[in-house]
């Protein structure tokens, strides 16, 4: 049984540790515990209508963040910028001086770009600059610079359509830069990207193009990493980052122009930003907005951005991409095994088709690695038996280490001998390669028609990544990848009939496929009162919003009237899921905020456990070393402490991780996330405390703190010797994921993730229950209700006994 058999221990002021322990990475050990008889304060009166059971519970904190600074969020115009201009004016005559803001021409701008002195730094242009400038002038978008500027001057909101490869992401912000003159106004230009990697790499590219140092005039800002400075004029950022900034700058006063790039991807943050910017545009006539999309589905954006009802749709500028015709082939019959069919197709292409690289789309890491293995085995045979050319195979997926991702840009291998059959490369990728990455040389695309998509259903609270058929629009995108350098071919592993009948037109925007509790909290923080009539481009289902509000209410982030509570306001400061944020904020009450901080960081990065296919047994043995009988959260903590211990002992951490089958990359990024979160906690004066390690309540306290955030994700064992659990509120039958360390079955478990594959699993579980979180009256009659009632009575009895009456 897993009853909380001790009274909840509460730290009291007298015994709280001072700064010294709060700051140490390894939990310091407070001397005495203080017993308080009243129950948990911040979160106690939680009525509980329906239980929660969430899917992927990796929080939104992303992984590999590096050295970082806190986001600067001042509303005032940046005084340094004006200063910079004054400085520059003394030194040289800038071509910018002749240009009038919002009245420039492409010719003027070109002249400024051609000048020997860099108008933004005052330093002479490097040779490389002019080399890049020539290639920039060749981009399709360059021919329409004048047209763009004219339209930009005329309107407040502009929709810009340019296919991948048109140069819009790098060039348009620069065109705006030469027109907005941020050094005069002190207001920045922002360009959002849906992906962190894109924000970083594009910023680097544009810094090169402008011949400035990254982080100075051109910078980027992603979660946990801010490379901008006082001189920054142009800032690339993730859409989520801009949304977070909006919480403290509701009018976006720092910016004079905001460019939403890759709007066709319709990420959650982009959708919310569009609605917000539409509102801000009413208030701020001087704010210019450009919505950039790679697909021709621009009408929707145009009509959405006509600010008032009587206004015409927002003007559109379209730039043709550099595309060649792509021939499309379908299979005559549906495939029995799309991976097998894909492998065969790649091999056939390699055997008979002329030179040109291959891009194969698959759904996930495991599938991709498997396909790569199979292709390379077969190719070896082909080379031996039928004199085929060499084939280099590269996997590509999100969790691949960056240096391996870079390999896809390597040149195709040379033929084995002079005059031999040409070599080619084959990239096996997830849908990252669909829009966000441009790989030249691809001539053949193999499209089985599936991708992994996030899906959320408020009714069962399933939130999972599921393999689903792609949409027609994304099938066209995929085919388009084949025509980047020359006419190409796209092999679709489904019939034409299936394409027409079974694929949906457009991929559902993320807002329809997500749990919105985080978004609703953000909107509340942004001051949106009427969520029901909020101008979503694609409004989510009412039940989704209902669930989100409900969950935030349980977490005490919203009061019963829907008002933001103090806790809610504080929770929104953390770039975490509300449940994780609440757990973190309330952890000092359980005297274990250091540990909960570590656990939160570990839950915010991808799995730290490595389990290679060829060495599973050894990996499991190694994991068993860290195993804690109470569950996976504590096992994670053990591993982290061991990692930090190894680091302090001066061991080679990389080697240590390799030996222990732990991911160094993910552990170090967890370390980094921890540092960021710690800073936020310090800013908001949330104390960092620990229970002494040798105190018998060390782990009990952590378990209780876990429950403070995740009491909605609790499952009860069905019967005493069953492996089946039932989630407390949704009554869904689940099993504990085989990766768990929990061997003795507990009656109650709190879990981090609800994984839906062909079975329903809960992952990362720890044994704990506290009936205090549940308002039993709201439960439907059944086993779980009666079990909870029994438990409540037991706890009451125990308290009465201890209380001594």
């Amino acid at each position, binding site marked *: 049984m897993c009853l909380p058999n001790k009274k909840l221990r509460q730290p009291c002021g007298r015994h709280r540790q001072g700064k010294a322990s709060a700051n140490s990475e390894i939990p310091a050990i407070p001397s005495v515990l203080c017993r308080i008889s009243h129950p948990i304060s911040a979160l106690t009166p939680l009525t509980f209508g329906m239980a929660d059971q969430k899917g992927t519970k990796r929080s939104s904190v992303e992984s590999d963040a590096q050295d970082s600074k806190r986001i600067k969020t001042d509303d005032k115009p940046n005084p340094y910028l004006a200063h910079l201009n004054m400085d520059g004016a003394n030194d040289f005559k800038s071509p910018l001086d002749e240009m009038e803001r919002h009245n420039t021409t492409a010719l003027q701008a070109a002249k400024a770009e051609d000048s020997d002195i860099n108008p933004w730094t005052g330093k002479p242009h490097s040779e490389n600059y002019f080399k890049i400038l020539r290639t920039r002038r060749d981009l399709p978008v360059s021919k329409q610079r004048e047209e763009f500027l004219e339209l930009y001057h005329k309107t407040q909101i502009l929709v810009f359509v340019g296919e991948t490869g048109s140069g819009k992401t790098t060039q348009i912000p620069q065109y705006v830069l030469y027109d907005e003159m941020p050094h005069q106004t002190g207001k920045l230009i922002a360009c959002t990207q849906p992906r962190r990697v894109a924000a970083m790499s594009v910023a680097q590219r544009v810094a090169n193009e402008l011949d400035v140092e990254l982080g100075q005039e051109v910078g980027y800002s992603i979660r946990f990493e801010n490379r901008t400075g006082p001189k920054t004029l142009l800032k690339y950022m993730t859409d989520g980052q801009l949304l977070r900034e909006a919480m403290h700058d509701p009018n976006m006063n720092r910016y004079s122009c905001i460019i939403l790039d890759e709007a066709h991807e319709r990420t959650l943050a982009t959708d919310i930003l569009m609605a917000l910017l539409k509102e801000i545009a009413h208030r701020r006539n001087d704010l210019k907005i450009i919505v950039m999309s790679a697909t021709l589905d621009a009408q929707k954006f145009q009509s959405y951005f006509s600010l008032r009802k009587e206004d015409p749709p927002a003007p559109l500028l379209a730039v043709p991409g550099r595309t060649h015709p792509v021939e499309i082939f379908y299979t005559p019959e549906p495939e029995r095994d799309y991976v097998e069919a894909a492998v065969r197709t790649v091999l056939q292409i390699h055997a008979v088709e002329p030179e040109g690289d291959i891009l194969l789309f698959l759904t996930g890491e495991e599938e991709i690695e498997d396909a790569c293995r199979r292709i390379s085995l077969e190719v070896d045979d082909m080379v031996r038996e*039928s004199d085929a050319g060499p084939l280099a195979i590269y996997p590509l997926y999100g969790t691949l280490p960056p240096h391996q991702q870079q390999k896809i840009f390597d040149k195709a291998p040379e033929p084995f001998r002079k005059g031999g059959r040409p070599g080619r490369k084959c990239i096996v990728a997830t849908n990252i390669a669909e829009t966000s990455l441009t790989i030249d040389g691809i001539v053949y695309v193999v499209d089985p028609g599936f991708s992994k998509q996030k899906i959320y259903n408020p009714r069962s609270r399933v939130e999972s990544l599921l393999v689903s058929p792609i949409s027609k629009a994304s099938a066209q995108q995929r085919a388009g990848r084949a025509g980047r350098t020359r006419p190409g071919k796209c092999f679709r592993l489904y019939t034409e009939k299936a394409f027409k009948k079974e694929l949906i037109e457009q991929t559902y925007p993320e807002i329809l496929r997500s749990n919105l509790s985080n978004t609703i909290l953000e909107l509340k923080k942004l001051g949106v009162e009427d969520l029901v009539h909020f101008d979503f481009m694609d409004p989510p289902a009412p039940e989704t919003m209902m669930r989100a509000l409900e969950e935030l209410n349980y977490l005490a982030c919203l009061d019963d009237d829907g008002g933001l509570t103090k806790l809610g306001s504080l929770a929104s400061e953390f770039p975490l899921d509300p449940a994780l944020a609440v757990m973190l904020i309330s952890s000092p009450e359980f005297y274990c905020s250091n540990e909960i901080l570590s656990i939160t960081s570990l839950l915010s990065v991808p799995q730290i456990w490595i389990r290679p296919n060829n060495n599973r047994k050894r990996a499991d043995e190694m994991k068993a070393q860290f195993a804690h009988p109470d569950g996976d959260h504590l096992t994670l903590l053990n591993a982290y402490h061991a990692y930090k211990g190894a680091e302090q002992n001066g061991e080679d951490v990389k080697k240590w991780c390799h030996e222990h089958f732990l991911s160094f990359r993910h552990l170090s990024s967890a370390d980094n996330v921890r540092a960021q979160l710690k800073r936020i906690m310090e800013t908001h004066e949330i104390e960092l405390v620990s229970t002494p390690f040798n105190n018998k309540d060390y782990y009990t306290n952590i378990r209780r703190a876990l429950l403070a955030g995740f009491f909605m994700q609790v499952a009860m064992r069905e019967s005493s010797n069953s492996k089946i659990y039932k989630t407390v509120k949704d009554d869904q039958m689940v099993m504990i994921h085989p990766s768990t360390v929990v061997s003795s079955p507990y009656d109650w478990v709190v879990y981090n993730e609800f994984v839906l594959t062909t079975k329903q699993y809960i992952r990362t579980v720890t044994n704990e229950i506290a009936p205090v979180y549940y308002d039993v009256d709201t439960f439907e009659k059944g086993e779980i209700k009666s079990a909870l009632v029994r438990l409540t009575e037991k706890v009451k009895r125990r308290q009465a006994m201890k209380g001594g009456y």
Partner: protein
Amino acid sequence: MFMGGFAFKSDMPLLFRVRVFLAPATLYLAHGLISFIALTLIPRFIKNSPSTSNNEHWPRLKTLATSALSNNLTYYPSAVYPPYQPQTLKMSTTNNNNHPQEEEEEDDYMSPLFLAPPTTTSSALPIKESSLQRRARLKREAEARSRPKSKAELAQEAELQREKAHSTSLLASKPQSKGLAMMAKMGFRPGSTLGSSSSGSAEPIRVSIKEGKEGIGLESERKRKLKELVENMEKTEKKIKVGEVDYRERMRQEREEQRLEGQVRGAQKVAEGLDSERAKERGEEMGKRRLKGIPVVWRGLVKVREESERDRRMRRDLEEHAMSRLPTYDDGDEDADDRKALGKKKVVYEVAEDLDEEDEELDEFNGLTGEEKLRRLVEYLRKEHHYCFWCKFKYEDERMEGCPGLTEEEHD
């Protein structure tokens, strides 16, 4: 080297050519057969079971059947002990709670209670259960409870639960959600959608789980094939079902149909003869080369004739070509006799120009019953030619004196 996949050719058409490899194909067939059996046989089995005639009950019955072993001794009169239901039944009881426990109420002649003389007050007073019986019952119940469920059962249960959750809207759930209350304060009414315009969707996106590595379209293709198979089975089943009792009736009907068709053909021939005769008399050229110019009542006759003629000719041409050179080849040495012998003499034969065109009028006519066709023909002949098909006589004028009437019976 390749077992299957695409076969590329330099002049490859827009479609892939796939060589089907044998072993997987047979496996696939076997799989199809198994699922076919599962779909067709199991429901039928259930249809035949005496306890119910309703197909909707079958998921419930299936769980019953699996737990029947541990269950069949627990049938006590329901007034005495509430019939024990194993846990597997729980979800189905909520689904169809309108089923009185028919199965359980049936007397179980294996039960010791069956032999015991019924007490008059049995429905009012509980029968005393001996301690041994009680122990045995409890033991049985505990065993049933503790029996580990098979993976398939569990998967089915989980899926059922999920489906149930996915198909019930939360907006109507009781007690009302706090989230909904908050939304109501913002002006939301159940049934409406979110957003400033009413463009949003009221329903969340459905979750569908893909199992295995099947390609797009395979599932629906398989369903389609299965459906066809089932339909065919049903058709043959129906035919058999007609049974021996109806045999005579059926034979009689078939003969009657044949006779009518024969009469229709006869009447059509008469009509054709009379029409062309009249046309000749009037000196008109019958629009023979255009089918649509022919009255619909006998157009079918001509069409069939033309078609068979064309087929015959095509076959003959084909045979000739197969024996000789290409039809375009012209041999200078041939004289007129050679050509005639080789059948190369240009035969002037033209099919009706609209032979292949769609002809709705004719299709409609062909769709009629034999009786109706005949009636129309008889009417046509009477009206146009004052000819009675039954008297086989062409009358002088439209009064047609002496003809007893329109139908065959009247001529008996």
